[in-house]
């Protein structure tokens, strides 16, 4: 655990107790089984906002606390532990986009609403089965002083609930070109935008978006025209580090639950945790979790400090968190045996969320390739 300030410790402890009282895993089951509109509980989201978590990244003059990414990571780690379904992370990514590239009017319009939980934000980047920001093809064509957007976005987190969608579109060049990408701020209720809610294994809110001549004004451009590629990478890096923090918490919880089971389940007249074959697999998971924690905290810290190796550290954190949770979620099911296969047990919920989170903003192999590219080989 990183060395924390008093403020950070208080916030983390508050998150721990809120999650335990108000958002245990049963809350996710309730959301799933009740078929909640956007796959989260609006009352829980209100409480999250009231506690100030939606404003952690937002500067004080826009109604937030401006505490930064490591602090956000502490909260996401705790909400990750119980698989809390909320648009906190998606909104934080949209917040990051505004902070990195927004003009004063754009920030004034959205950031106070985000901080209060009165608006939900998200980012729409991918268009196919895999994370591929370099392959953006959704077209934005000049239309008077504004633009018309046409094309598709897939698997947008909280896409059906979002009031603001940061859309990465192509204003020039062709898919694969570095230049020609522009970011747009598109309201969720824009005319011509169709949002298809997806039923996914993790029971969270994802949507496919279809844009048909969606009109936006010139004031919807976030940052500069054709030059959005670099800032998009910076936004995505913040998303990667943030989701890695959620994954760290969820993986740690997967492990803790499994470790408890090893200490209580009796077979052959003894607690199964006395078997060395299981002990060494537990030690391996613990080792991986410790390494992942170092990577995640280093990435969040690097963002806060505006260090020069943010990109590499965020890829490292996302890849490491993905590999670790992948292993731990599989072992969670295996070590629980038959009970782990039942819907009544939580193991399956962790396994399902693990794979979705692994694929979000690039999986382990995507980030290993990116790390190698960043290092020049």
């Amino acid at each position, binding site marked *: 655990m990183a060395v924390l300030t008093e403020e950070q410790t208080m916030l983390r402890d508050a998150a721990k107790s809120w999650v335990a009282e108000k958002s245990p895993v049963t809350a996710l089951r309730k959301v799933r089984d009740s078929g909640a509109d956007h796959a989260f509980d609006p009352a829980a989201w209100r409480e999250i906002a009231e506690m100030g978590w939606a404003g952690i990244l937002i500067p004080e003059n826009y109604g937030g606390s401006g505490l930064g990414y490591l602090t956000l990571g502490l909260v996401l780690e705790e909400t990750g532990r119980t698989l809390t379904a909320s648009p906190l992370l998606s909104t934080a990514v949209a917040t990051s986009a505004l902070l990195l590239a927004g003009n004063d009017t754009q920030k004034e319009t959205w950031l106070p609403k985000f901080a209060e939980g009165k608006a939900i934000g998200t980012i729409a980047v991918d268009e196919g089965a895999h994370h591929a920001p370099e392959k953006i093809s959704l077209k934005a064509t000049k239309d008077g002083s504004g633009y018309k957007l046409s094309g598709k976005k897939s698997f947008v987190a909280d896409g059906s609930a979002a009031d603001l969608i940061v859309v990465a579109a192509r204003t020039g060049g062709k898919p694969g070109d570095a230049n020609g990408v522009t970011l747009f701020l598109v309201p969720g209720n824009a005319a011509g935008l169709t949002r298809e809610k997806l039923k996914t294994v993790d029971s969270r809110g994802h949507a496919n978006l279809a844009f048909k001549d969606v009109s936006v004004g010139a004031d919807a451009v976030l940052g500069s025209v054709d030059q959005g590629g670099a800032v998009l990478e910076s936004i995505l890096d913040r998303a990667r580090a943030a989701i890695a923090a959620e994954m760290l918490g969820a993986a740690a919880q997967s492990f803790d639950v499994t470790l408890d089971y090893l200490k209580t389940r009796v077979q052959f007249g003894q607690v199964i945790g*006395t078997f060395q074959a299981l002990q060494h697999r537990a030690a391996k998971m613990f080792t991986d979790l*410790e390494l992942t924690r170092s990577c995640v905290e280093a990435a969040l810290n690097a963002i806060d400090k505006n260090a020069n190796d943010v990109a590499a550290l965020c890829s490292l954190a996302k890849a490491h968190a993905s590999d670790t949770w992948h292993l731990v979620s599989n072992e969670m099911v295996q070590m629980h045996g038959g009970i782990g296969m039942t819907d009544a047990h939580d193991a399956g919920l962790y396994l399902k969320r693990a794979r979705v989170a692994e694929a979000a903003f690039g999986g382990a192999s995507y980030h290993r390739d990116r790390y190698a590219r960043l290092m020049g*080989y």
Partner: protein
Amino acid sequence: MAALEARESELESFRGEARDWLAKNFPPSLKDVDVAMQVTGGWKPTGDAKLWAERMGAKGWGTPTWPKQYGGGGLSKEQARVLLQEMGRIGARSPIGGMGVMMFGPTLLEYGNEEQKSQHIPKIVTGEIRWCQGYSEPNAGSDLAALQTRAEDKGDHFLVNGQKIWTSGAQYADWCFCLVRTDKTRKHEGISFVLIDMRTPGIEVRLIKLISGNSPFCETFFTDVKVPKENLVGPLNGGWTIGKRLLQFERAGLGGGGGSQGRMEGRSLEQMAKDYVGTDERGRLADTDLRGRVTQHLMEARAFTLTLQRAQAESKSNQGPSAATSIMKNAGAKVAQDRAELTLEIMGHQGMGWEGDAFTPEEIVAARTWLGGKAVTIYGGSSEIQNNIIAKRILGLLDHQ
């Protein structure tokens, strides 16, 4: 706040003091030379190295946090860190090292009596006396407490008979800290911690040749060796606790292995791979499978380095020892061994050289490092033992035995 500022300014004035002293006393010819490694390797320092060792020894700065009354530097942890920073800045390495400094000294300071500390600590501080470790035996490796080297009570002395193995540097050592059996009826509670003068009659040392061609280890035989009673450290039959404490110092020292290998001088692993294997038109390693594994390794090495830094930051901030410490040996060993295997694979046939002009010195070193490195997961508590320790002490799982 004021107290904090006062401490900061005190530290800064110490920094000035350290900087001045180093400027006057560090021979520039030794910049980036690892003098201590040569000393523990049986080499008697001469010239500038001798001078540097004498000066650092007299100042006590090779053992900066040890008490002044035994010749240590008497510095606080913060001051010692500043000293290390200042030494690092000018490429000065401590000439005082070896097992005495890393493991035995700290243990004796905790458990030794006044006479023992006054006799031995000052000579470790000056590097005058070299120590070796009499722990493992042919039938007591991972199960160290099964050791059988016998120390019989003969009134004013113990009579020691038995055999130790993997006694690194025994051929150069002046003294040996040794675990011996003083009670045959009890396992852990029948072990004592004694100090043996290596010049005592009845001690024979033989070199063991390893797969790497090197002989860093010895077998040490004890035949009717007389050890004075005053050389018992701690209580009779209380040696296991002391012996384990020493292992903690040993493992803490071994932990960094992977990290430091990752920062080896010369070409980086990725550069080496580019040079031997070539790149495609986009500058990527031509062998995509190798590229993937090189990347996975380098990311793992980075994660390990970040974990070392995190554990350091956590222990500095008075959160107590970091839980991460327990994983260091295994994680570091994996990084070091993976690196050696990848290096060999990258070099292909050229990585298989034993000696001779057909191979570059870098290639020969790669092969020898690969072979020697297989010991990392065996010594200092094998990887399996480390996993047992994590399972039992950190995760609270019950003993499998």
